[in-house]
């Protein structure tokens, strides 16, 4: 173990703010990208499903009529 204590670990020899702001923002951006991707997948498949059902509903009467 290279750290004498956990507080020494968080302090990073006085560079704590620079190190943790680097890692923290990177972690936030990665999590944000994953959440945005998931919400896009959900909203996109929902919208495409709606469009598909609307398209089928318009076709229905023709199918029944023929």
């Amino acid at each position, binding site marked *: 173990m290279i750290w004498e204590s956990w507080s020494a670990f968080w302090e990073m020899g006085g*560079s704590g703010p620079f190190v943790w702001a*680097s890692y923290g923002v990177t972690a936030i951006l990665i999590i944000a990208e994953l959440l945005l991707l998931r919400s896009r997948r959900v909203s996109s498949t929902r919208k495409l*499903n709606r*469009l598909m059902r609307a398209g089928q509903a318009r076709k229905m009467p023709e199918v029944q009529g023929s």
Partner: protein
Amino acid sequence: MSTSESRFNLYHYAAPQAFYPVAGKLAPIFAVIAAALTLAGLWIGFFKAPTDAVQGEVYRIIFIHVPAAWMSMFVFLVMAFWSAVGLAMNTRLSALMAQALAPTGAMFCFVALWTGALWGRPTWGAYWVWDARLTSQLLLLFLYLGYMALVAAVDDPRRRDKAGAILCLVGAVNVPIIYFSVKWWNTLHQGASVSLTKAPSMASIMLSGMLVMALAAWAYTIAVALYRVRVLILERERHADWVRGELTRLGEAN
């Protein structure tokens, strides 16, 4: 016919319909690899790598700064490659691959700039200087954002693919400029710590931590791009019968 069936046919997977399930199988595998490598890389970076003799602890930013910077350049080159393939062979999937990679490349580009600023302040005394390396990396971020804005703005899919591909190919010129900027100009940014031609100028445990994090960034990028390209394929191919089937299946699963 029999020869094309017996041989592995790469062109088969150029069809969105064939690639969609493959991407779905591969993406979670790369996601698990990315998570495992990230944990291993952070472990090496924070608990195995010693304090740097010159810089103290602040050098630990390197474990995200360098992999992010490498990834931001490499992803743009891969986008340019897919753009060239798309323009030459007229394959729809190529442009979708480039579009799926762009947000992740932009994210890594921003991370490289952000961590660089936070590393620059304690070591150079400045968050930002207008030297060749930093300026060309900032230009790369604008190229990513410009590409994403362009692709979002063009409604017609064919024109969108073509316009995006041309921007990618022209913008790719910037990547070697970034890479060699520290050689071509007298920059505040240090030269390459790692190169293929000479021994690395850093301790091997530090180097291995950085390389593990770089591999993690690769796996992450592949996983996210595959997940994203699946959504793009569904949007683009929404009139195809197989997509209707898949949408029905997804609709029932929700």
